[in-house]
């Protein structure tokens, strides 16, 4: 039994080589946990298997080895308990915005009346600011609006766990910023547990309680779990003035630029205890056990200025 709401244990994914040679192992022995109500982001370079991990959590893909437990029950297939927002929105293009949401709500609550389904769906359409556009087809919406519909659909089914696969990856920077703030707003009104993939360090810091850093594949690992201790509510303009912001940011960027490569080297690779050497801030949480390690170099005022 683990204390985590969601627990990934020893996840491994390998693909058989096409020429019958050694199979390609994308990631190996991935362990992490997510607490209830927590917002966790995962960052890593392309090809490290982030999307595969998310699909395994969703139940859409199967791990070669290892299990995912949600509320101590094994995840064996897709479920309405785990809502997914895909990068390409995945709205059904032949039905209207409203119907894209009502079909999901109907699936969640088969016993509801038409009116109940409609009211519930409209509530979430309003929440993402799309009232008035509900009769439009997805093709008549901009990319940002489509992603809002997708987010509304995911929140409308009130899943226990929300999985976001680079939800803002295809949006321009301005739209992205707006929707990020909307997401925080919606999330803070709920008690939703969120697991999100992103490539954007600023986005991750803005949104997350904790960021998992992955080394490069093959044999990718979760090397660190960085706790973001910047108090909420956060917004894009104020967060960069917080004294910890750039320390955290620099730490993550340094990881992505330098150490994600070094740690991917089979010689220096570690499995159980992620490397803590060189980690200055913030506290390290061992993703496997959840135990918090003390900072090696606590933050000083000097670093704030830097």
């Amino acid at each position, binding site marked *: 039994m683990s204390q985590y709401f969601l627990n990934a244990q020893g996840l491994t994914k390998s693909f058989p080589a096409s020429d019958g040679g050694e199979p390609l192992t994308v990631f190996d022995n991935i362990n992490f946990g997510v607490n209830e109500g927590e917002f966790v982001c995962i960052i890593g370079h392309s090809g490290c298997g982030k999307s595969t991990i998310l699909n395994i959590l*969703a*139940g*859409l893909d199967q791990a070669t080895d290892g299990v995912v437990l949600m509320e101590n029950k094994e995840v064996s*297939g*897709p*479920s*309405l308990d*785990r*809502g*997914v927002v*895909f990068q*390409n929105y*995945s709205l*059904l*293009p*032949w*039905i209207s915005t409203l119907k894209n949401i009502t*079909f*999901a709500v109907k*699936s*969640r609550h088969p016993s509801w009346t038409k009116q109940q389904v409609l009211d519930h769906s409209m509530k979430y359409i309003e929440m993402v600011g799309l009232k008035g556009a509900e009769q439009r*087809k997805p*093709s008549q919406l901009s990319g940002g609006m489509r992603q809002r519909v997708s987010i509304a659909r995911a929140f409308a*089914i009130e899943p226990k766990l929300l999985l976001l696969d680079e939800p803002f990856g295809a949006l321009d920077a301005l739209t992205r910023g707006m929707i990020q703030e909307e997401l925080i707003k919606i999330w803070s009104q709920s008690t939703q547990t969120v697991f999100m993939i992103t490539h954007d360090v600023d986005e991750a810091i803005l949104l997350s309680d904790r960021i998992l850093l992955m080394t490069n594949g093959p044999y990718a690992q979760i090397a660190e779990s960085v706790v973001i201790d910047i108090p909420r509510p956060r917004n894009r303009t104020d967060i960069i003035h917080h004294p910890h912001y750039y320390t955290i940011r620099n730490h993550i960027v340094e990881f992505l630029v330098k150490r994600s490569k070094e740690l991917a080297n089979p010689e220096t690779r570690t499995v159980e205890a992620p490397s803590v050497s060189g980690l200055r801030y913030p506290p390290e949480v061992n993703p496997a056990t959840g135990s918090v390690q003390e900072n090696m170099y606590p933050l000083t005022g000097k670093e704030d200025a830097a």
Partner: protein
Amino acid sequence: MQNLHVRSALLSLVILTLFLGIWEFANQPPEAKEALTEYEMLMGGSEPQARVPNPSEIGKLAIEELSQPFYDKGPNDKGIGLQLLYSLKRVLSGYLLAALVAIPVGFLIGMSPLMHKALDPFIQVLKPISPLAWMPLALFILKDSEISSVFVIFICSIWPMLINTAFGVSSVKKDYINVARTHELGSLRTAFLVILPAAAPTILTGMRISIGIAWLVIVAAEMLVGGTGIGYYVWNEWNNLDLTAVVFSILMIGVVGMVLDLLLARATKLVQYVE
């Protein structure tokens, strides 16, 4: 581009006029060089050789036929509308039966790689067979020329629908399937809510190809089995040496074929979606 429409219509009209004009004037009967013999008088003129009829003669016949398309004066003299209706009835029954079989089977093939692999050899062998080659066997087994011609339509229109349905279903984007899976849609709801609408444009394209082929084949089938229908009509008029009626019915076959295609094109547009 209103302008383009007008200009293209004008150009079509010019081409048609030129074509009909050249046909009309290059195809005049030769001048009588000497006085008609008694026999020629009896036969109504001197024409040593049969000619392809002129547009004006065809037009005259067309007006005559179309003014009373549904008359019925016995097996050898029925209105063109009636004959077309006979053919349409056969085409539609064969075609709808084919759709009833092809779409569910296509679904199955598209959904299951196993069924695809298992059924593919049969389809590949049966598909290239000329539908008329089935006629003797159909006549022998079914013992009815009417049902046999419906069967021939069935067998020729099944393949495009089957193949397009299978292709459409198997190439539904994985994202849509994942949406269905994450929302725990049952297999029936997935089929009707996600796969069918996603594959509908491809399926309708197959249906459009099929109706075209069915209309091509019915003429030949009716020439073989005889009795009624536009194919029989063409062949009957040929036996009567009434080339004017032959050309007229060729035109009518074209017009009806075009209307069928337009209807299916309209239906395809209804299910089209923009991603």
